[in-house]
């Protein structure tokens, strides 16, 4: 999966979750400040990403995620280390 494909999938998940147009979500959109994702919303989002990408995101990672790009970087790193997925 290319970074572009990962980003597209993340943006689709976010758009569906937040009920907003996918075009309004950019790579540098900040989850809390720009998209209004509160701390429990972030927990839900991580669960949806885990389901969609088939991984388990540790709590320690969630604290480092601020933007859409942060999610994409984390996921692409994980996927490159787990090529079978």
């Amino acid at each position, binding site marked *: 999966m290319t970074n572009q494909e990962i980003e597209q999938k993340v943006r689709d998940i976010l758009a569906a979750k*937040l*009920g907003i147009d996918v075009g309004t979500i950019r790579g540098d959109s900040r989850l809390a400040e720009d998209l209004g994702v509160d701390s*429990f919303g972030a*927990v*839900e989002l991580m*669960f949806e990403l885990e389901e969609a990408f088939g991984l*388990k995101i540790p709590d320690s990672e969630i604290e480092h995620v601020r933007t859409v790009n942060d999610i994409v970087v984390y996921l692409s790193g994980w996927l490159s280390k787990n090529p079978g997925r």
Partner: protein
Amino acid sequence: MNRRRVVVTGMGVVACNGTGVEEFWRANVEGRSGIGPIDAFDASDLTSQIGGQVRGFDPGLYMPAETAKRVDRFVHFGLACADMALKASRLDPAAEDPTRIGVIIGSGLGGLLFHEEQIVAAFDRGANRINPMSVPRITPNAVASQIGIRHGFKGPNMVISTACASGAHAIGEAFRKIQHGEADICLTGGVEAPLTRFNFGAYCAMRVLSKNNGDPAGASRPFDLGRDGFVMSEGGAVLVLEEREHALRRGAPVLAEVTGYAANSGAHHMVMPDPEGADAAGVMSAALRDAGISRVDLISAHATSTRANDAAETRAIKAVFGGDAHGIPVSATKSMIGHSIGAAGAIEAVVCVKAIEQDFAPPTINLNQRDPACDLDYVPNQGRSLKVGTVLSNSFGFGNCNVSLIFAKAR
């Protein structure tokens, strides 16, 4: 003491025989059953395979898609009914003090559908794969909280869980909250989405459900000699209860008045009613005293279509009204609606208010051969026009939780 009076200013209902007050009432007037074969889940290995499913219900008509996606079916019913009731009451939440508006809803089971799904997932895939929305979706008070969140109501907010009496308990407690000045308006009622494989199987295991699978519409037959258990259904109802002066000041539609409420316990058994019906008689008498009356024009019976309940309730009605009992029509609308557990008392409250408004006693359908132990006027098979100034509504829950409510014509 001059008690504050409480009126009904709006109603919403979702039931297997009709969604929306008008469609639902028409079904009750015409004696139309909503019972059919169950296809919400696989019931093929169960003794009972029939129920009252709500069909063609689109939660998206009553709430944003985002909300619809995040809540369980019992909350869908609650939000939809609240939406209908508020529209009917012509209440403008923006014009009201939100701290004076409460939400008190009954639910026996909470978010059982999602609960089951997540339990299966936890065992199949691991407990570290449980959806983080599980707790807020499953908890029974999700329904009252979601109604509060959606409309910004900041008064007392709670869910009452007393099995089949939940909806009636909720209405009674909301009535008291307004009487006692703790709120001016309460959205109140009951909801239930009990048609899940585990829950339905559990009721089958208790052997309390009708096995009349060959004739679904004829299976719920309160007071009939051939009755063989109740028929489970899903749905909900919400009423807007309002302090009378408040309602009159804003020119609200006043549909009926709530004038009496009582609750007690038989302290006898978790499933069986007291065969003498002393607790049921006691709760009816107490509600009549609360309303300051000794007779009513119509009784909306709990009448589940189980052998034990219908005979005990009949005995209790006769104990309360003595010689007058034979002159009071007794409607058993579960014959058409089925038994929606925590929603039943609220759905039947809608029946009571419409009966008062339309001066009409709905029928007890499927009553072909009366049980000799059940010898009152049950309005068999055909509804009847009559002056309905007052109605007594009974709800008796597993665990001997009993509630009686009195509704009266607005004056």
